[in-house]
């Protein structure tokens, strides 16, 4: 969706600055999640600390971007696509911040598992695969935002179902383990928390993708079926 420029160059610059900061925040959250998963895989305590530290910066981005949006509304009274963009960004940064919280949960749970020496054996459950899908959803949702690409956003929305299914599969697998071996229940529950955090990251990525469709198409596709999401995004 190529947009021509505003008469006011300052307005263009202000909007561009907010968009860039959203992408910067998104990149930070991506790396935070990646670091949390690396910590889980390696048990490296320094990585756990880094994830927790980074959350402060993510929170700072959220507050700063919200503040910038309020100022745009107050000073410019944005309309149409600009209005949709500002409103959607307000929601997108909330999703990004919560993804940061999920990364922090993964990190803290990892530390608990390692410190209590309850780390599940390698290949205990494959959280890594589903985590990579969630990370790629986030990456592509941000990409769709940067390029105002509704079709790509629709594909991200669609992928969330796969993550939900995989989470249930992990849960079933862990329940089986726990029934066979009650001694591992403590650490299995730790893994459930981590898998749940990954699943939530997928949900937030989906929310971001829905907001991208709203920005580009002006239609609110939240809580509608996939057929409607695709029809809206491609129409």
């Amino acid at each position, binding site marked *: 969706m190529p947009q021509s420029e*505003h008469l*006011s160059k300052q*307005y263009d610059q202000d909007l561009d600055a907010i968009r860039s900061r959203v992408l910067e925040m998104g990149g930070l959250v991506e790396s935070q999640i990646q670091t949390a998963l690396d910590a889980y895989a390696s048990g490296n305590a320094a990585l756990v600390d880094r994830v927790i530290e980074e959350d402060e910066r993510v929170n700072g981005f959220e507050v700063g971007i919200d503040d910038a949006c309020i100022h745009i509304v107050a000073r410019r009274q944005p*309309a*149409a696509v600009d*209005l949709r963009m500002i409103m959607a960004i307000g929601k997108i940064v909330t999703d990004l911040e919560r993804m940061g919280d999920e990364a922090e949960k993964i990190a803290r749970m990892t530390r608990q598992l390692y410190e209590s020496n309850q780390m599940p054996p390698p290949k205990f459950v494959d959280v890594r695969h589903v985590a990579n899908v969630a990370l790629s959803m986030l990456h592509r949702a941000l990409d769709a935002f940067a390029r105002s690409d509704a079709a790509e956003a629709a594909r991200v929305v669609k992928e969330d179902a796969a993550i939900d299914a995989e989470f249930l599969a992990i849960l079933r697998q862990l329940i089986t383990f726990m029934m066979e071996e009650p001694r591992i229940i403590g650490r299995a529950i730790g893994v459930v928390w981590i898998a749940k955090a990954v699943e939530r990251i997928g949900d937030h990525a989906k929310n971001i993708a829905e907001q991208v469709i709203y920005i580009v198409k002006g239609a609110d596709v939240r809580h509608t*079926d996939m057929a409607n999401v695709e029809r809206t995004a491609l129409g």
Partner: protein
Amino acid sequence: MEIARPEVQRFTGAADGAIKAAAGGLSFYYGAVNALRNINVPIHEKRVTALIGPSGCGKSTFLRCFNRMHDLYPGNRYEGEIRLFPDNTNLLAPEVDPIEVRMRIGMVFQKPNPFPKTIYENVAYGLRVRGERARRVIDEKVEQALKSAALWDEVKDRLQSLAFNLSGGQQQRLCIARCLATDPELLLFDEPTSALDPIATGSIEELIHKLKDRVTILIVTHNMQQAARVSDYTAYMYLGELVEFGRTDDIFVKPRDRRTEDYITGRMG
């Protein structure tokens, strides 16, 4: 799992009213200059319809067709029609007397233009022109009109002083009261607040909100935020054409036409 979406709760906008007036195939010429091109638009009853667009787009020209103001100058020519309902009169038909039209359709201009008379006489003027002579009736109508125009409390003790002694905002409300005294069906506002400060502007906008309980309003404004604030429907005009007409809620959030979007987002010179 996909869930069926609950019915979306809408919190804004009034339901569509009946149609009070409609332009059909309306074109207008100032001599050889074609100022309006094939305009088709409904005006919903007891709603506010805003006409927006850049200078020279024809929005004031269009507004003035409704009370046949263009008849005052030779060489002007209408094509098409403007129907006024429920009687389905074509306001532009040559056999329709413009004076009759103006009895039913009031107009408020950019700059307040009270008559050089007292406050009372300004409002009573239309009634007297209509042949009303009973003092009691005129008193009552003047009071009602001034109350409806939210001016009564400010002027009730000085009805006999000159209208020019009022402030700009009060003069504008006096002009609105002057229109209301004759019970018009349609009120035309041509940039009614562009000569007023923000507080006087606010009181006129508030008045427009109140008036739509009883009268249909068509307003030309080059202040887009004003259109967004006061209107139920918005028509965007450009180069004498109607580009887009729709509910104000839709026009300002999701216009269908790229030209409308460029204009309301400030992307157009």
